[in-house]
């Protein structure tokens, strides 16, 4: 990919829910290979921003380019762009009526039209990566929250995405299970995966983030090197937020 093309490029993004303006003109960029963490108080619009990037939310106005493709253009084949963007949800959203292996294969089979053998091979490789090879026959209800989230990551990876979006991936987990999920995300980051992570895990942001974005009230208040922002927040809203969570 050329240096000119950002993985995600958001310009002047506005999003209304009814009369409520949730995003008030966001300009934002994620470069290929970058790990960008988005933090902020609840209701700040950070999840909405993330969900706009694969258009689970319809932007009201503005432009979003994913690898140079304008996903706000109605002519764009959204499904094909989405296969390049892995998404991990707070509530895991595994398909409860399918086994772990089926969860990992269904989109490979129906979207990528992979043969069964190939899909299973890819699925097993990604399950091994998240350390859950022995669970391939289990149903999601029989897994712990941490295991479910790791399966969800493996499911997204099985589509061979160019980038991953994480929407508060550890917020629904018991504290002792958070570490396993973060470890896998760190591993992904170290392999050079482009990542946009909405999170409350400041430790993760400090350790693996290339950029930290602080949002409040639908705008980006401050952004920069995570270690820098966390140690010396310039804006008082950032200071107030960090003093509460750190």
């Amino acid at each position, binding site marked *: 990919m050329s240096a000119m093309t950002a993985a995600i490029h958001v310009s002047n993004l506005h999003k209304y829910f009814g009369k409520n303006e949730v995003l008030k003109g966001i300009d934002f960029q994620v470069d290929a290979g970058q790990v960008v963490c988005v933090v902020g108080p609840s209701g700040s619009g950070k999840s909405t921003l993330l969900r706009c990037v694969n258009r689970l939310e319809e932007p009201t106005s503005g432009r979003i380019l994913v690898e140079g493709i304008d996903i706000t253009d109605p002519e764009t084949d959204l499904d094909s762009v989405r296969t390049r963007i892995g*998404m991990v949800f707070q509530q895991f*959203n595994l398909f409860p009526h399918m086994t772990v292996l089926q969860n990992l294969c269904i989109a490979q089979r129906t979207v990528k039209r992979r043969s069964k053998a190939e899909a299973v091979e890819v699925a097993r490789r990604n399950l091994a990566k998240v350390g859950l090879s022995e669970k391939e026959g289990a149903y999601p209800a029989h897994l712990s929250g941490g295991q479910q989230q790791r399966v969800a990551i493996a*499911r997204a990876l099985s589509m061979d995405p160019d980038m991953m979006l994480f929407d508060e991936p550890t917020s629904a987990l018991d504290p002792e299970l958070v570490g396993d999920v973060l470890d896998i995300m760190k591993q992904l980051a170290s392999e050079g995966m482009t990542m946009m992570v909405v999170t409350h895990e400041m430790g993760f942001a400090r350790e693996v983030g290339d950029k930290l974005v602080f949002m409040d009230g639908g705008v980006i208040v401050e952004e920069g090197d995570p270690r820098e922002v966390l140690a010396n927040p310039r804006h008082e809203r950032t200071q107030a937020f960090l003093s509460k969570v750190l």
Partner: protein
Amino acid sequence: MKRSTKRYLRQGGLYAVLAAVVIFLAVSVDWGNVHRNFWTPGLGDNWHDLIVTGVKNTAIYTVISFALGLALALLLALMKLSDVLVYRWIATVYIELFRGLPALITILFMAFAVPIAFNGWRPPGGTAGAGVIGLVLVAGAYMAETLRAGLQAVPKGQAEAARSLGMAPVATMVHVIIPQAFRIIIPPLTNEFVLLIKDTSLLSVAGAAVGQRELTNVSRDFLSSGSTSSTGTSLVQAALLYLIITLPLTRLVAWLEKRQQRAR
């Protein structure tokens, strides 16, 4: 008086009234007449026709109406949840219309009025077939509402997960939403099936060729034929056969509902 004594007396009083009613009925009923009318001995021959023709056709009509009704219901439910206003509108009008009409009227319409309106066009299967089409139309309307509720009960995150993996809307419906919706609605759907078994008895008013008659119709034949001295025995027999079919199914529904509540 102690409170427990009071309760004891109150309950005892209720049982006494109940016993009095039963005794009154038992004494006032002409048992000989009841026996002659409702359990005439020597009618073992009825069972053969009731089961081989009646139960068989009841089963066939139920299964056909259920299968076609379910297909129609799925279409209607998807239309009702569609983004297209016209689809929603058509589905709503259809569902309200056929839920608002007595099933009997719909069946009579299909059997007698529609063939006249369409220049004597006859549905396959003669009058019985026409009646079954009427049942399909009604069952489709009722099951559509059940299905819609089931589809809406699947958490939104499921569709979002599928779409975020690049799955198209149709694939998302077929592989993710519909299988989960069906799991949710198996108990109410089984209930609809039981209702449908009983509603096939309405087909008897449309009339049918001898070999095509369902259980109620066959039992009515025995009722009106002079050979059995027009007793109600065949009705009792039919009633027993219906219960043999429906009771296990209603128990099954209760069990399914209980299991689903535990799973939650």
